[in-house]
């Protein structure tokens, strides 16, 4: 084979190593002739088949997990509006004088020092992270539906399912035997009532349903409201085991929460 690798990280004008050749093949950057020769050379090498199968599986996994939705019309409109308000081509020249620049630098150093002192000293007893903002559960439901209703964590293992709730809500929840028509897809951590809110995504009689679970102490019913414009969406609130459950679905009765029970250790 005569191909030379284009990668600047590798030596120029050197024949490709077997590893580089394999990567080039798997990456689809080999030309047809080299590709045919490479396949021929790999015949009878089971490790090659494993590489092929593995790469295909990894690629599929990445595409599945990282398939993002298109930008929403609202977001594009907002960006376009901002752009119109502030032309980007304007390059503002720096007019700051040297003495002012030195003063600014000194002030920055002082600010950093005070910040470090605040963080490790005086501010050590500061309250919990203030950055979290509660979100309407209906918005989170709509967002999940818009993104294809895929859970962040498929959670195929019931021990780990329980561990998620044990770590986040303090109660190791498990699912009882689900009746016909209810299917659990997995878990997501979209926020909601608190940073620790755990959401379970389900399909109930072919419809998308979500259960948001959090500690009772984190309950904020005002974020479980259905606006008057939203018809056919119901939120059912249940309190049990010091937890609060909000089931968001198109059903006028709760279908899932009763099947979520603490694990017996």
């Amino acid at each position, binding site marked *: 084979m005569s191909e030379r690798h284009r*990668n600047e990280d590798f030596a120029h004008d050197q024949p490709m190593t077997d590893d580089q050749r394999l990567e080039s093949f798997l990456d689809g950057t080999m030309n047809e002739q080299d590709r045919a020769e490479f396949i021929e050379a790999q015949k009878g090498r089971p490790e090659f088949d494993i590489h092929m199968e593995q790469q295909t599986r990894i690629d599929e996994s990445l595409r599945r997990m990282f398939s*993002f939705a298109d930008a929403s019309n609202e977001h594009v409109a907002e960006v376009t509006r*901002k752009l119109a308000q502030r032309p980007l081509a304007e390059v503002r020249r720096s007019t700051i004088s040297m003495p002012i620049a030195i003063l600014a630098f000194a002030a920055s150093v002082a600010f950093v020092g005070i910040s470090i002192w605040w963080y490790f000293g005086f501010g050590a007893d500061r309250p919990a992270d203030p950055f979290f903002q509660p979100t309407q559960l209906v918005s989170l439901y709509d967002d999940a539906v818009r993104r294809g209703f895929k859970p962040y964590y498929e959670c195929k293992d019931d021990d*780990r399912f329980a561990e998620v709730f044990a770590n986040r809500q303090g109660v190791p929840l498990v*699912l009882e035997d*689900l009746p016909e028509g209810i299917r659990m897809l997995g878990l997501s951590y979209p926020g909601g009532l608190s940073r620790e809110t755990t959401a379970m995504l389900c399909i109930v009689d072919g419809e998308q349903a979500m259960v948001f679970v959090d500690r009772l102490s984190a309950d904020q019913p005002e974020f479980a409201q259905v606006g008057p414009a939203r018809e056919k969406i119901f939120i059912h609130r249940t309190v049990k085991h010091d937890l609060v459950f909000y089931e968001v679905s198109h059903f006028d009765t709760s279908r899932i929460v009763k099947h979520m029970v603490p694990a017996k250790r």
Partner: protein
Amino acid sequence: MLNPNDSDRAEIASDGSAAEFAAHYREAYKKLTCIAAGVLGHFEDAEDMVQQAVSIALDKGERFQTGSHFVAWLCTAVRHCALNHRRKMTGRKTVAADPVVMSTMLDESSRGQPLERVTQGKGELLPDQQSFDDRVIRALQTLTPDSRSCLLLRIVENMSYVDIAALMQIPEGTAMSHVHRGKKKLRELLHPSRERQGGEA
């Protein structure tokens, strides 16, 4: 596909053609999201990160200079914003229950009796079934942010190395190197022999 080298597109922002900008921004949006996800190491928050970064970048629009490429400029903003977010999250004392983190937290030997198995009505939670996606996410954490971004742009967005290089503002060879080495490392960590041994990625 949006070509970051196309110089006339650098002028989109200054032309004031809102419709044209919107179309190009839509086209670039998923690529920017891939970059954010690459830096963060997961897909959660990636879209929020892009929207936040673009908003900040436009608020500080005077830093954009005519002649430079607008989408690459946005890409830089997204990378910086995502890196800041990542540093902020890793500096937190709170504990997340993401699978990636849990895998390092759970000490099987200290858990005592395993939780009682439950029978899953529709077969969604099969006993002993491991999630390959979880392992892929864990393996991804071993790559650098730039490697992850290049890898995602190549595999998920199917971009050419020329486009990746222009978008990430790195040499084409480096982009290719990131992808090839990243793929190889993932395969090593996710090799079936490790799976059989119960090895974690």
